[in-house]
């Protein structure tokens, strides 16, 4: 049955190395789909500008380094906060105006925003990308026996897991999270209890955007800081969110890591399909369980 596959089962060390690499990609998918899931699940906005906001996070880190001399570690906080504020301004000025309309308008608006932002950056910075070096403390690789794992990539997995689980905990297990989830179900009732729902909505959008920007800062040392870095990733991340279930936080995190692993395996056995395997899975999931693996049918 495996005879049509290009590569016979690779040796065990290479196999585990590929799984680890898949996990690293999964970390980015998880972080980004978490932001998307929060924004959609809690605010019912399909945020197509997510890829552009991820790119802005990476560029913010680059600006901080090259214009202000601020290094990687402070940038991990400053960049998401800055881009988050930009997100809040966007929500106030633009998204709030169409909040009462069909989902589709939110999609179109954020899609248009993404094109404009990307175009502006591309006009100024070209498409080849700008260099951003790995911080000194995370340079080098550690010998795990079956592969040399660049320390920075190990850090990406750890950081992503911490942030994802922290966010999940905040939404599912704290009071603030409870207010957020209640506001999704019935905004006017929650407002009647004296909770400032519009402000919560705005801050939540900002938080989702900040997550995207954080992923951008994490990505900057690995991939080129390029105006195009978000546009390819965002389509895949949308597929991940759909597979996980559009409103489910846990679904987004688990699918992100799982699909990263699956994509990693595809690269070993049939690399030509690595671009499309996630979409094939999405098509399958939609046929079998349209609400997504962890989604609740509405």
């Amino acid at each position, binding site marked *: 049955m495996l005879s049509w596959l290009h590569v016979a089962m*690779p*040796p065990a*060390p*290479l196999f585990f*190395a*590929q799984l680890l*690499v*898949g996990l*690293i*990609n999964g970390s980015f998918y998880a972080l980004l789909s978490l932001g998307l899931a929060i924004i959609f699940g809690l605010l019912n906005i399909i945020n197509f500008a997510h890829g552009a906001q991820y790119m802005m996070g990476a560029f913010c880190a680059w600006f901080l380094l090259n214009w202000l001399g601020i290094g990687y570690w402070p940038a991990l906080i400053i960049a998401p906060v800055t881009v988050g504020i930009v997100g809040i301004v966007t929500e106030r000025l633009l998204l709030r105006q169409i909040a009462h309309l069909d989902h589709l308008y939110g999609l179109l608006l954020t899609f248009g925003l993404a094109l404009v932002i990307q175009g502006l950056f*591309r006009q100024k910075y*070209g*498409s*080849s*990308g*700008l*260099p951003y070096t*790995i911080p000194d403390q995370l340079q080098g*690789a550690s010998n795990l026996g079956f*592969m*040399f794992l*660049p320390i*920075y*990539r190990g850090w990406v997995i750890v950081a992503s897991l911490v942030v994802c689980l922290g966010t999940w905990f905040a939404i599912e297990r704290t009071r603030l999270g409870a207010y957020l989830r209640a506001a999704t179900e019935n905004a006017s009732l929650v407002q009647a209890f004296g909770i400032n729902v519009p402000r919560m909505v705005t801050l939540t959008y900002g938080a989702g955007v900040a997550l995207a920007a954080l992923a951008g800062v994490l990505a900057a040392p*690995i*991939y*080129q800081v*390029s105006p*195009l*870095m978000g546009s*390819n*990733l965002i389509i895949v991340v949308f597929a991940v969110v759909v597979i996980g279930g559009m409103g489910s936080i846990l679904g987004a995190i688990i699918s992100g890591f799982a699909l990263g692993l699956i994509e*990693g395996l595809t*690269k*070993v056995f049939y*690399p*030509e399909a*690595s*671009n499309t395997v996630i979409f094939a899975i999405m098509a399958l999931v939609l046929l079998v369980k349209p609400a997504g693996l962890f989604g609740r049918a509405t």
Partner: protein
Amino acid sequence: MRRVAVAAFSAAIWLLMGAAQAQTPDTIKIGVLADMSSLYADLGGPGSVTAAQMAVDDFGGTALGKKVEIVSADHQNKPDIGASIARQWFDTDGVQMITDLTTSSVALAVQEVARQKNKVIMITGAASSDLTGKACAPTAIHYAYDTTALANGTGGAVVRAGGKTWFFITADYAFGHSLQNDTSAVVEANGGKVVGSVNVPLNTADFSSYLLQAQASKAQIIGLANAGGDTINSIKQAAEFGIVKGGQKLAGLLLFISDVHSLGLQTAQGLELTSSFYWDLDDQTRAWSKKFFDKTGKEPTMTQAGVYSATTHYLEAIKATNSIDGPTIIKYLQSKPINDFMIRNGHLQPDGSLVHDMYLFEVKSPADSKGPWDLYKLIAKIPGDEAYKLPHGEQCPAAKG
């Protein structure tokens, strides 16, 4: 009401006919069809449009008493989009020649359109040697470089220096396959061996998985049969996985100065590459490149310099033959050597390849570099006949026999 409608309809037809009359060319249009927005935008892109306009301006702006105009479009690396733009340009927009044509799959598609319409195309961006091989066309010129020259240049130099075993990371489309095939032939002809390869979709951000496979193969040389953003990502990520530290070497089979500038000398130092142009080669190249730099703020790549050179020679050919007919212009360009600031000892062959001198460069170390664009050290000049020596033999039907 009906009479008004008929009258309006006839008036519209009459006006359209009038407009159609105006289509007979009183301008000569040259089209720059490039990747303007994606991974290859910096090696051709808007810079090529600038170069083409410079050529027209330096030529005087007119030919055969008509104004020369540059039009441009973004093919987005999609052959169907490129072909339909080319068709529209040739059929309705009065474009006589198309240049740049980065991305081999697009160039091959446009070459078919040019063959049907008998129009000249001068390819300075795409690399695949199939353009002058199986897919050769009588009015197409493969101008600036091709995968044969890259294979003989970089591939030959690396294998002769001792890199005998190769693993290819290949962009999974026409260009990547072409480059891998040509380089493999050169490697094997020089006593080397290809131990494996992996096909990677175009415009991939993450090469870690493929680099791991290359590492596991234990090949001495990892040949990067890709370009632009893909090459930049491969090289950057290879540094992270300690590939060079582990004893393997990278061979960037197609590198442009825009790529090296983006990578930075710290990462790219020591890489060997083959190019037909470098801004700092001699006084002639420096003089022209300064004009380009003043307009764009970047030094030109061989694709962009090629667009200027090709456009200039095309306009000269029109003037000399007093015609815009494709085959006539090709015959004129084949009739004598082509020499300018970029093309040295150029001879246009029957299969469409412009054989000319190529250069083997090495990327400088940061210590040796005296400026942000002082990036290359010249290792050797490769005479045209050696650079374009066909590893698979002549495959163009028109040129055989």
